[in-house]
């Protein structure tokens, strides 16, 4: 890729947000949001509605002035710069195509505003229309296009002037599910080809996982955790992230280091502390520890009546449960089981031939490996 950072260079920070705070009246919209974005990186801001992701996007675009904090584009503070001097491309959720201009007119608009002239300008328009696959539709009006085509026009218009950053506000929200999958890959292809730095906003976790180099999870106006999709899935730091990305079982117990071993106890199970516990200081004897286990990381075992003795409880990372629901999902099946303290636990398994053995009411045994459990903060 032509814009790739030369090897050995220090990392090229395209955007930096530092301590952004914003309130609307008494409602806190953003609370101390800080992050950095490298050139050519694709970041998705993910969170439920009202979590502050769109407000963050509008702060970057310059449509909202934060109460505190700094926004730097390639090291340059842009807080005092109006949106039309920031050189940022934005795709709106409803595309916001100018209805009175043709496709080519829409794409040409940012070049006109920048005073690009003549042959170069026409070439830039036709080049980008070709990249998004609309070269034959330049004379159409936006209302004559399908949703997917309008989305491509909006993308072309946001990219044609080589902006420092491209912002996508729920770019696929208005499309139906099938088209959405195709457009995810299409947008990725175009922005990667141009080496664009992109920040996208969505509440669709699959979209975030598919498209992003890194994902920033927002909740209640704060940036909760930021990392690659894999980091977020495998090592969520909080209960919110563990639950928001994929599904998790959250187990709570008390920390114990009696006898040299580091363990977490509850009334119905005993777990060896996962390796990641070392990173979390301050767990004293008896402190409450929460950890997450993904439904696919729990193994299930059938038990005969005679096996279910009290002595089984003494083995770590194992416990008994009763099947509540057994649901067939095609490639896998899902069990909801209830522990003896009443907590429901979700389990997914692809071992479909075993499925019939776990009818509701059956007593079973669960086990997990300590390495698959992740200790959560707070």
């Amino acid at each position: 890729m032509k814009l790739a950072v030369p090897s050995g260079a220090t990392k090229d920070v395209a955007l930096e947000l530092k301590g952004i705070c914003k309130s609307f009246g008494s409602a806190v919209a953003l609370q101390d949001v800080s992050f950095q974005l490298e050139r050519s990186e694709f970041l998705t801001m993910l969170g439920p509605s009202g979590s502050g992701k769109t407000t963050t996007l509008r702060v970057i675009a310059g449509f909202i002035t934060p109460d505190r904090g700094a926004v730097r584009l390639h090291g340059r503070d842009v807080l005092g710069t109006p949106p039309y001097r920031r050189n940022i491309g934005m795709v709106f959720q409803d595309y916001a195509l100018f209805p009175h201009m043709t496709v080519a007119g829409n794409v040409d608009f940012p070049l006109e505003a920048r005073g690009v002239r003549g042959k170069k300008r026409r070439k830039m328009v036709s080049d980008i229309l070709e990249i998004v696959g609309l070269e034959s539709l330049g004379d159409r009006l936006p209302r004559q296009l399908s949703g997917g085509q309008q989305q491509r026009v909006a993308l072309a218009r946001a990219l044609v002037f080589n902006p420092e950053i491209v912002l996508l506000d729920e770019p696929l929200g208005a499309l139906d599910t099938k088209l959405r999958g195709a457009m995810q890959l299409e947008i990725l292809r175009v922005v990667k080809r141009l080496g664009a730095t992109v920040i996208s906003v969505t509440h669709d976790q699959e979209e975030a996982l598919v498209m992003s180099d890194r994902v920033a999870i927002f909740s209640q106006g704060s940036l909760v955790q930021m990392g690659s999709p894999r980091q977020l899935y495998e090592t969520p730091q909080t209960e919110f992230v563990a639950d928001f990305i994929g599904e998790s079982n959250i187990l709570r117990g008390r920390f114990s280091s009696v006898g040299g071993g580091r363990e977490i106890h509850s009334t119905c199970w005993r777990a060896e502390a996962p390796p990641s516990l070392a990173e979390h200081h301050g767990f004293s004897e008896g402190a409450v520890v929460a950890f997450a286990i993904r439904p696919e990381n729990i193994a299930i075992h059938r038990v005969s009546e005679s096996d279910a003795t009290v002595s089984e409880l003494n083995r770590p990372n194992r416990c008994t449960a009763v099947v509540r629901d057994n649901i067939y999902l095609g490639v896998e099946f899902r069990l909801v089981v209830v522990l003896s303290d009443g907590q429901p636990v979700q389990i997914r398994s692809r071992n479909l031939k075993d499925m019939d053995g776990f009818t509701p009411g059956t007593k079973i045994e669960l086990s997990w490996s300590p390495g698959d459990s992740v200790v959560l903060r707070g």
Partner: protein
Amino acid sequence: MTASSTIARVVFWLAVCAVAAFLLLPTVVIIPISFTTAANTLFPPVGFSFKWYRTVIEDPAWQTATITSLKVALLTMACSVTLGTAAALALFRSQFIGKTAVRALILSPLVTPLIVLAIGVFMVFSRWGLAGTLVGLVIADTVLALPFVVVSVTATLYTVNPNLELASLGLGAGPWRTFRRVTLPLILPGVVAGAIFAFITSWDEVVMAIFLTTASLRTIPVLVWSQVRAEISPAVAAVGSILFVISALGMAAVRLILRDEQR
């Protein structure tokens, strides 16, 4: 269809026709009278001729009044469209203290008795030396026409997606370019409709004009008024017909423009 619903229909349409006749006839009756060959304005007219139209067109008093009326109406249109569009944008887009009061003030000429307004304007303008001047008349008519522009521009602003202006700013167009290339083209139907309303308001206006005009600065409605007081000639009917047709065409144009907008 049952008999009772047929009767209901007939009664309904009779009522509609009666109301339409009540509203239209007093105005429309002058049109046949304007083609009379007689020297009086009695209905029904006698014969058919354009002689009263010829009289009007050849009369220097009517010529001067027409030019004055056109000048005043066109200047009023220009002033009220500029001010009214700006006011509509400000009232629609921004939040400021006293916004409701400002809106009410701009719209108040719609509900203020015209004679009260005219007397007030006359007293103030006399002192300022604006009474009897073209500028004074344009200012007064602009006050009357402004609410129509504000209302029709505001109505089209509701149809414009606010993200379009943000998109334009984000794409590098400054506020002025955004207005010229994005906002104005999209609210143009409302602006043009407002302009026509403003023109007609001034073109037909008589109360304010009676106070603010002089023998040397007279609009058509004022001349009609003074002639009618002396003698009722079919020439006045001819002028009335011309005024009526121009206003009717204007209203038809507004309907067409706004209907296209809704499609």
